[in-house]
């Protein structure tokens, strides 16, 4: 029975602690006159040079435009555990943030349950195209196949060996969209080029991404691309071997200024700005956004340090133009 005695003491202590310290911090109510307050929940670190960072950069940019007194944001990064993220979303909503951004397609189900409980808070989630018909939910996605296609066109033009390598994470979602767009771009430019695609089964395994890049180069690739945060391993290899690299999600030029040709970057600011103005005018949600080359939520960033031949650059620009005016059909995802 001694054990039970100990347990009782244990539990009493817990109870005492909980009652003694249960002092709720008052939640600041949302006011139209105060700053616009945004909370964002991201699955990976905000400095991942990929998906999470793209949202952080956008919010920092908006804060720069609007000023710190007009725009505040808080964040919880590394929330890859879905029900932890759900708790965070619920908590931020209950604290009266104007807009809670759930920056990961895995958060959709949680948002679907939480959003109806907080009709005065706007929620946004992505990448996804579905607002579930809930009036206070926005959705946003990226037509990442578009920049993928442009990268593919450029890659095909620069390719000499006849082989291009692609390092992907898990064969789904945004990454797969980008990769499929890239392959389409290469094939449209030169159908004879072999595009080797490999998915390493993880968003985090930098070592395997690096080895995959080595293998691609061994198989003859002289141009490579890849998606998600583990590709930094592949970029390192490309740099060492002098193989050209095309990036996506964030500007990866700083990783290897010698060999990065171009990157498709996500500028969510386009989307978030519109959400803010809608919320401020009383529309809480219901709109599904897609960043694209057309609305400049997707941008092609060329590495100024890389001597890209003018005719190749022209091909890229033509592809961008064609995608925008609809003369180029990628055949992957899209409007």
């Amino acid at each position, binding site marked *: 029975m001694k054990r039970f005695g100990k347990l009782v003491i244990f539990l009493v202590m817990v109870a005492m602690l909980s009652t003694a310290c249960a002092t709720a911090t008052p939640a600041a109510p949302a006011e139209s006159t105060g700053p616009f307050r945004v909370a964002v929940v991201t699955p990976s670190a905000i400095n991942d040079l990929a998906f999470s960072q793209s949202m952080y950069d956008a919010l920092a940019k908006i804060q720069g435009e609007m000023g710190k007194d007009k725009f505040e944001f808080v964040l919880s990064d590394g929330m*890859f555990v879905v029900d932890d993220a759900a708790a965070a979303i619920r908590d931020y909503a209950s604290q009266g943030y104007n807009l809670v951004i759930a920056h990961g397609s895995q958060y959709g*189900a949680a948002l679907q349950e939480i959003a109806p409980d907080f009709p005065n808070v706007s929620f946004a989630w992505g990448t996804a195209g579905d607002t579930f018909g809930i009036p206070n939910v926005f959705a946003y996605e990226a037509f990442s196949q578009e920049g993928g296609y442009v990268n593919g066109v450029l890659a095909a033009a620069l390719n000499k060996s006849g082989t291009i390598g692609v390092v992907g994470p898990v064969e789904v*979602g945004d990454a797969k969209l980008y990769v499929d767009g890239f392959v389409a771009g290469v094939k449209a430019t030169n159908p004879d080029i072999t595009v080797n695609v490999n998915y390493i*089964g993880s968003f985090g395994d930098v070592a395997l991404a690096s080895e995959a890049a080595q293998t691609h180069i061994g198989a003859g690739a002289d141009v490579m691309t890849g998606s998600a945060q583990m590709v930094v391993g592949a970029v390192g290899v490309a740099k060492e071997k002098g193989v050209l690299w095309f990036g996506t999600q964030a500007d990866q030029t700083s990783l290897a200024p010698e060999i990065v040709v171009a990157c498709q970057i996500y500028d969510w600011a386009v989307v978030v700005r519109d959400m803010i103005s809608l919320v401020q005018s009383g529309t809480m949600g219901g709109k599904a956004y897609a960043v694209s080359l057309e609305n400049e939520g997707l941008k092609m960033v060329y590495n100024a340090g890389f001597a890209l031949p003018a005719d190749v650059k022209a091909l890229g620009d033509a592809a961008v133009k064609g995608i925008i005016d609809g003369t180029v059909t990628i055949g992957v995802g899209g409007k």
Partner: protein
Amino acid sequence: MRISWSSIFDALLPLIATLTALAVGAVMLVLLGANPLVAYGALIEGAFGSFNAVADTIVKATPLLLVGIGICIAFRAGVINIGGEGQMILGGLSSIALGLAFPNVPGIIMIPVALLVGFIAGGLWGGIPGYLKARFNVNEILSTIMLNVIAIQLMNLLLRGPLIQPNQKGAAAIPQTARLAVEYDLPRLIPTRLHLGALIAIILAVAVYFFLWRTTIGYRIRAVGLNASASRYAGIKVERYIVLSLMLSGAFSGLAGAIQVYGVNHFMITDGTAASFTGSAGFNGIVAALFGQLHPIGAIPASFLFGALLVGANKLQRVVQVPAALITALNGLVVVFVVSSEIWRRKNARKRAIRELEEKLANVAHNSSPEGGDKDAG
């Protein structure tokens, strides 16, 4: 029953160790420019501050407890099961596959069957390292580590393919299942997120206690763990009990996975890691079990406190806006401090044992005196 100061100290030891670790954490918080008092106030509020907070804590503690009681069984048989993550995944996958395949069965039938299927699937997945150990002498640490990765890839494969939500098509498909029928949601105990799974876990913890200490099989499992060669000499089929204990251990993790699906998430999604589904409960459950003295009943408060720490720490991050990495490091410190503090408990236990022995000896001496003999006779 007598409560001595030293046994109170023993009971409070994990708490004292946790507070010491948090004191070290306070230094880190100051270095990061956060006010530790505000931070820890938020931690406690996040874990215990309201009905909802306590409910969240219990929800978090539930898989820890289920994995933990499985760990108790394995540890008692002398094997370490670090395959909880993979076993949870298997439990989740099999139970959701069943629920999605038969969406029109009454919940009262489907829920118990699905949980049972999760229990069995986890048991089979846990049985693999058991069988490999018993039959081929493959160490369970090796096989469970490998099987965790295999389970993750299996999850990716199934959620991309056969189990994917029907409307997820094309390149941008999200690797997730459809939501289970609402009738299959585990009933809520009170109007919070608290679900029936917590009650199931507590009942099972008590049941496992009786199983281990009141049944022949349980006795044999413990005997194998205490001394395998003596057990074999006594005619116990050691290998069989090792397989059984790893199966049971896996089964409870599998059940934890099934309960996570039916009680919390109601669907499954993968990002290529185990933790996004399990919340690392497969590992943290080991810690909770040890904090509970590898005793299924002790695992109950231990899981609750560990769950509180996890839930509260996330709140701390939100309130003082420190990087989430600090929370991980802090959890590590708490684990290290608590497990290290055990030395004082053991020292106390030894002192008590010696004192009790002395008292007994004194009693024996007393009883053997003429008066004592008279009393016995009377």
